[in-house]
């Protein structure tokens, strides 16, 4: 035996704890339900809280536990409980305790309106080991409930957040920027900065995804109308200009380049995935294309991760429009065009999403990567441009 230090502290959020190789499943998302007690105007996944059909189809407690147990056997360290509103599940507490007692960290995405004193106490006594993420829809009852369309939701949200603060349960807040609340940004950020666990300004969603089940054309049109204009979005993202440019210099030098015909350029399905409320396992939380989901009721996480996901990741684009634009576009990375968004917007995996293209181009113009009226997929000297941008001194 050797006398040395026996117990080593490890940062639980350290990306690479593993010396040898990454586990087959490092992280797992579980959408516990698609139902939500709010009815947000911009949301891509919110069935009514009392939707009996949806509730009946949801995975049972035992089925969720079985999936969690398999995840643990695959060396998974972290599970995200999301929805819909995950706290709507009557068995949330049981599933949470099961996950934590099995040695998983748990990340909870919630609107905080269903946090009770009992639940806050539970999070305090059995900490999730990940900061809870609370989405905020407004700073006033009028703006908040204009978004959530749920009477009493503002008061419930304030109460839920108050309970987390009281019990010292670490959480962060993020915003959804909508016409109803966008003039409250300063107030929101000031309020957020007083939350002890906020180590940076809140993140916002502003270019909302369409209904991920593609079930409601009318709602999709309404969501499109709520998206910030690309110019408005840029203005918000560049409010802290120097910090933003510094981040972009680092990001662009590492991650932007033409994807060619390879469809999946992100980490989807590499060492994680998402189980939907009904037991279908998919590489990405947004991707519901029937060819990209795996029925866990007739299989296993391991089978999906070893046999289906690698095949999905190898999929190639065939749409001529995509091949002539996106495949050659060096803004890939800066542009959020991806198979999941193509699916929710157009019902295919490889159709260019126009508004994402506009956002990427407006950003690239701001950063000096392309000139006015230039199309990024026509730029041949993109490597030089990225290098020049990455090497640019602040203020230069």
């Amino acid at each position, binding site marked *: *035996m*050797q006398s040395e230090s026996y*117990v080593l502290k*490890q940062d*639980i959020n350290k990306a690479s*704890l*593993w010396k040898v190789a*990454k586990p087959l499943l490092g992280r797992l998302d579980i959408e516990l339900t698609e139902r939500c007690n709010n009815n947000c105007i911009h949301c891509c996944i919110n069935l009514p809280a009392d939707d009996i059909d949806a509730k009946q189809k949801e995975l049972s407690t035992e089925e969720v536990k079985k999936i969690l147990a398999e995840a643990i056997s695959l060396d998974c360290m972290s599970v995200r409980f999301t929805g819909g509103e995950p706290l709507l599940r009557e068995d949330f507490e049981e599933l949470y305790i099961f996950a934590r007692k099995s040695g998983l960290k748990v990340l909870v995405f919630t609107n905080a309106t269903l946090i009770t004193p009992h639940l806050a106490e539970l999070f305090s006594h059995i*900490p999730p*080991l990940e900061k809870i993420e609370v989405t905020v829809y407004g700073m006033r009852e009028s703006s908040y409930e204009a978004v959530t369309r749920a009477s009493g939701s503002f008061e419930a949200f304030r109460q839920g957040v108050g309970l987390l603060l009281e019990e010292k349960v670490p959480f962060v807040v993020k915003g959804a920027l909508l016409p109803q609340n966008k003039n409250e940004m300063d107030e929101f950020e000031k309020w957020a900065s007083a939350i002890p666990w906020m180590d940076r300004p809140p993140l916002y969603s502003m270019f909302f995804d369409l209904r991920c089940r593609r079930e409601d054309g009318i709602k999709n049109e309404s969501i499109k109308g709520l998206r910030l204009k690309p110019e408005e979005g840029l203005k918000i993202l560049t409010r802290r200009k120097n910090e933003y440019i510094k981040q972009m210099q680092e990001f662009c030098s590492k991650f932007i380049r033409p994807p060619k015909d390879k469809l999946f350029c992100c980490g989807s399905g590499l060492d994680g995935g998402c189980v939907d409320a009904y037991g279908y396992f998919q590489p990405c939380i947004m991707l519901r294309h029937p060819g990209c989901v795996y029925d866990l009721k007739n299989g296993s996480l391991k089978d999906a991760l070893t046999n289906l996901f690698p095949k999905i990741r190898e999929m190639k684009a065939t749409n001529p429009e995509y091949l002539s634009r996106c495949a050659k576009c060096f803004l890939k990375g800066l542009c959020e065009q991806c198979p999941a968004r193509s699916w929710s917007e157009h019902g295919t995996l490889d159709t260019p999403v126009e508004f994402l293209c506009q956002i990427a181009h407006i950003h690239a113009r701001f950063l000096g990567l392309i000139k006015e009226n230039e199309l990024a997929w026509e730029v041949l000297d993109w490597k030089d441009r990225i290098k020049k941008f990455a090497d640019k001194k602040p203020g230069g």
Partner: protein
Amino acid sequence: MRKKVNLDSVYAPSEDVVAREVQGEFIIIPIASGIGDLEDEIFSLNETGRAIWDKLDGKASLRQIVKDLSSNFEGSSEDIEKDVTGLVEGLLKRRMVIEKRRV
């Protein structure tokens, strides 16, 4: 403050932690709050620590554990005793093990 470890005591993993082997790492994950120094940490045990942890079954005293390990590992009984008591002291301080009883 260092907790006193008694060689005639029996120790067991606390119910407030769970131990897992993940990708060859043996890690201890807090379940209840207040484990370790901060809540956002997990702990890993090296091979020595792991060999000792496996013996903390709530049945064998530390003296018995030292004896068992001495017959399976190289090193003097004194060194092994130092290892065992050192680890258990550290674990007790972090509330990762509890004293079950004294023999």
